[in-house]
């Protein structure tokens, strides 16, 4: 077994190294290819900074909304099983199967000025396409399942006896939610939130369609990277790419921590 495991280990490490570690290293290498001075200057590029700020603003709205929805719908699906909740369970997973381009297209069909909802909304002066709100909607759409997929299995596992105990001891339902329910869900929710954040700041295809690509106004950081490559400033593009890669590493660390804490919680269960 020892000899075989050495071979397997090397093969897997080589595969993952070539496939995953190498491109990651390459992004950073390219980011700093012209020295730290050029990198610092590129960080001050107005268009990229504006794109970065837009991405942050989108995340500030989309992530909390999706977390609230994700935890809420998970509780409903697990605690109130019915054929409707089973249907919603499947539908919530829908965005996982859909290409971001298709997501962008369906949002545009619904909310553009001549779309289903777009037309009535426009007559009231509300525009939800080719602007900040469209990007937020697209970000919400692509990341809707990410929290519930972590929380639902956990809820099923944990069951309700802790809540029932608290109830018999006289606690109100809000208190029960925040102190009992959420406590057992903490790390699963953290895992889901982190995945949601990563997905929202990294969305490209859907935003490409719904944003209108207006520089400094609806150009997210991912769009900015793509634009820089298309307008032959790849070095600037790699600086943006490097920033996003750095945030990905941060995400990986949080995910690892969440997984580790979940495993600890598992091992200490009676």
């Amino acid at each position, binding site marked *: 077994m020892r000899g075989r495991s050495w071979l397997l280990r090397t093969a897997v490490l080589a595969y993952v190294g070539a496939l995953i570690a190498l491109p990651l290293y390459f992004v950073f290498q390219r980011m700093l290819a012209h020295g730290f001075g050029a990198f610092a200057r590129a960080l001050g590029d107005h268009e990229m900074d504006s794109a970065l700020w837009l991405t942050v603003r989108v995340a500030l709205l989309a992530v909390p909304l999706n977390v609230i929805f994700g935890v809420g719908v998970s509780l409903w699906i697990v605690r109130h099983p019915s054929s409707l909740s089973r249907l919603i369970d499947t539908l919530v997973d829908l965005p996982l199967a859909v290409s971001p381009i298709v997501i962008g297209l369906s949002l545009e069909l619904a909310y553009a000025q001549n779309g289903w909802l777009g037309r009535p909304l426009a007559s009231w002066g509300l525009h939800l396409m*080719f602007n900040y709100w469209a990007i937020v909607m697209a970000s919400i759409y692509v990341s809707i399942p990410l929290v519930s997929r972590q929380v639902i299995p956990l809820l099923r596992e944990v069951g309700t006896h802790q809540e029932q105990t608290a109830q018999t001891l006289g606690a109100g339902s809000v208190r029960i939610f*925040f*102190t009992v329910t959420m406590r057992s869900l903490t790390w699963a929710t953290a895992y889901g939130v982190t995945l949601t954040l990563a997905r929202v700041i990294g969305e490209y295809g859907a935003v490409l369609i719904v944003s209108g690509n*207006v520089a400094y106004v609806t150009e997210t950081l991912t769009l900015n990277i793509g634009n820089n490559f*298309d*307008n*032959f400033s*790849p070095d600037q593009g790699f600086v943006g790419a490097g920033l996003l890669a750095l945030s990905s590493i941060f995400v990986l660390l949080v995910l690892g921590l969440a997984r580790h804490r979940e495993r600890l919680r598992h091992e200490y269960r009676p």
Partner: protein
Amino acid sequence: MRPVFSRSLRFTSVVAIGAICVAGFVPASGASTPTTTVNVVGYSVLKAAYAAVETAFQATPAGAGVGFTNSFGASDTQTQNVANGQAADLVNLSYVPNIQTLVTAGKVPASWARQEYVFAHVNATLTGAKAQTTFPTPGIVTNSVVTFLVRQGNPLKIKTWSDLVKPGVQIVTPNPLTSGSAHWNILGAYASQLQIGKSGTQARAYLKEFLSHTVAQPSSGSASLAAFVAGTGNVLITYEDDARAAVNAGDQVQIVTPPQTFLIQNPVALTLNGLSKPAAVNFYKYLFSAAGQGIFASLGFRSVLSSIWAATKSQFPARNTSSALWSVTNINKQGWTFVNPFLFSPNVTFVKGSSTDPLVGVATYYEQFAGSGS
């Protein structure tokens, strides 16, 4: 543990709600708020040109305090977005049918090309007969021609359109479904054969060869240039102004002017929104003024203003600066009305009994041979 936990959760939710309220309503950090904003939507290669023209305009009295938002991308994509409601005051697109799409969509007035109509809104001095002589092609803000871009030193010795279909030649041209530049390239390819006396059938056969040699079809003109400069293919078909921008930027490429080429005419129009904004109308006028046209000329475009053209003619290859350049009306008297569906209709209709020779959608039909040659 319990009360502390719920308190911190409450605190976090308050902060989150506060963040949400702030996030939606804080615009991107920027300079002082302008008094009025002009929304420009253009095709992909205009980005640098408009940066220059807008800055120059803002230095004039009419442009003081005017802010701009800019969106540049593949011409057909931009057209669709504006038709679907994207905010736009001024649209500078790649070819005339794009503007006509916007007229049909109700965004641009049908009289978009008549300057008298436009200028009458701001009491301009340049109206009527005078306008006709100074602007030979109403509504067209810049001219260019179709040209080749090859690697430095021209290793494959590409000089003419027939060289493009030799073995080993890999052509880069954008995707005709989304890009205006692609339309011009295919027009250039098709017309080049007509110009050397070939028949329509032979020109179509050439188009098939041409498309079979493409190795990449990025979504826009500027994306194609980026792909070519990054190493894809060995010849790029593009606007002359974009090719010159690449050479001026110091890339290892050189321009090859084919003996037959095609006149590219880029239209500009004020939308119905734009017509009611004096700043937008003034900017439109500026584009056609000597100052504005001078900036375009310095960036490799061919001016439509006769005075500027006379002054800058010498920087363009002598062989295609004459007025005998082929344009859309040389292919068919009806111009775009015939040519656009004939070459680019997405629905290919076949001549009865001849399944290999389509009646319309010629270029779309031959797309299926893309990449099969070379």
